[in-house]
């Protein structure tokens, strides 16, 4: 089944894939031109999302695993809450992002900093990235916690026995050991984020923009959303079909490449620990 789907996409999509396709803006109602703004928008979105989710997720995991008092009643609750986030449908994150970031946080920023002028109180790449960060947070927290758990207790004890403080122990002993697993989690989160559409639907993705986002409050085009737009919103769906196949191919290649990098990183760090 997978082979049929992938084979079909590669077979049809390959034909239209060209340097021009990757570097030009869509033209003529998306029946010509390329997908450059969507590629750029996806990269920008994922970058912003990573900047938001990695510090938050890693710090949460370090707190839960290394700092939170053992036997505390709150730790399992927080863990449960984080894991439940992973089960929330992506579209719900999108609605939450619209309600919380755009309508609440954004409007309040406009109200206090811009005298009510509409700057941040509208869909924007910043809000889309933050919404996506919430969606990928469980991935980062869970993989980081696993990486921290894998560090042998004996090494923690040695550091303590030499008179290390808790932070020195975490910083010098635990984190260097866990960094590979943490990076893997980060990359998996990124590749998940790159493939999701629903969270950015209301929070910042644009139907068609002839320019690239340059500010945090700009809207942007995104590959997954572009696929959706071409399939359902285009004036001439038949004419966009070749481009559609190629766009899907690019999206797939991007997420596969990220997953592949995650596997390589993990293998690399595992080898280093063996030595």
């Amino acid at each position, binding site marked *: 089944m997978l082979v049929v789907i992938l084979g079909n996409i590669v077979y049809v999509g390959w034909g239209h894939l060209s340097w021009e396709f990757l570097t030009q803006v869509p033209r003529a109602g998306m029946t010509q031109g390329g997908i450059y703004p969507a590629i750029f928008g996806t990269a920008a979105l994922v970058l912003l999302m990573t900047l938001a989710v990695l510090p938050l997720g890693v710090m949460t995991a370090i707190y839960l695993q290394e700092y939170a*008092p*053992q*036997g505390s009643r709150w730790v399992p609750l927080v863990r449960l809450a984080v894991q439940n986030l992973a089960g929330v449908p992506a579209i719900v994150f999108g609605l939450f992002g619209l309600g919380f970031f755009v309508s609440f946080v954004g409007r309040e920023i406009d109200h206090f900093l811009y005298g009510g002028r509409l700057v941040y109180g509208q869909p924007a790449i910043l809000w889309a990235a933050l919404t996506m960060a919430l969606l990928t947070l469980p991935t980062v927290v869970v993989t980081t916690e696993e990486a921290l758990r894998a560090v*042998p207790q*004996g*090494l*923690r*004890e*040695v*550091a*303590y*026995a*030499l*008179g*290390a*403080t808790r932070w*020195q122990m975490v910083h*010098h*002993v635990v984190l*260097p*050991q866990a960094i590979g697993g943490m990076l893997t989690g980060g990359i998996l989160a990124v590749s998940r984020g790159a493939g999701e559409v629903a969270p950015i639907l209301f929070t910042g993705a644009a139907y068609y923009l002839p320019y690239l986002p340059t500010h945090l409050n700009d809207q942007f085009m995104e590959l997954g959303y572009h696929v959706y737009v071409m399939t359902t919103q285009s004036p001439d769906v038949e004419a966009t079909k070749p481009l559609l196949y190629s766009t899907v191919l690019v999206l797939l290649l991007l997420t596969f490449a990220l997953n592949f990098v995650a596997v390589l990183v993990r293998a690399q760090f595992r080898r280093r*620990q063996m*030595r």
Partner: protein
Amino acid sequence: MTPKPKLEARQLHFFYGTFAALKGINLAVPAGTITAIIGPSGCGKSTLLRVFNRMNEIIPDVHLSGDVLLEGVSIYQDGLASTTLRKRVGMVFQRPNPFPLSIFENVAYGPRIHGLARGDSLRRLVEESLQATHLWDEVKDRLSQSALSLLPEQQQRLCISRLLAVQPEVLLLDEPCSALDPAATQQIEELMRELTARYTLVIVTHNMQQAARVSEFTAYMLLGELAEFGKTAELFTNPRDPRTEEYITGRFG
């Protein structure tokens, strides 16, 4: 005459949750000697060792009554940082557990976190610490190699070097030879005897021959109590407590 005590436990009770692991221990460890703690599994000997440098505190749900004195000063008083205590009272574990770092970095770790030395003086301190365990000649040409490439016995000596580099006063050794073969055990035992010149050693062992060979004083523990404490020669040849006699003659344990 007994030398003055370096470490002293007074009416020490220790609990894991509601389980009493130590019941009213009174024990004075003489300075500059090797004191062995022996006893059957689960008698509390490792617990006692961990109470001496507050390593028990990293486990949740434990509590303690009574006191432990280091040179007459309570180590459980409020205000004494556990990091300061552990710098003075260091520990070597059952299994060799070097950091997955180079040989040099392993030994340099303690001095670095305590800010004891840097640059040339750090290199000197690392060399001295490795020489004290006779590891220097074996590793001096490969200090930048991973510590995990060493043999288990070398790793254990590296762990002792790593501890000596923080310039402690007391070394607590928790069955330091149990993961080593007899030849390696002999080397570590010789090393322990040499170290008494500068340090006070407390060793937990389940190996009575080892206790008889290396220690000057022996404490025999049973079910969380200190059954007998005295000079090793006397305790092994002429035990006062019949339970001690049963244990050392191999009737149980």
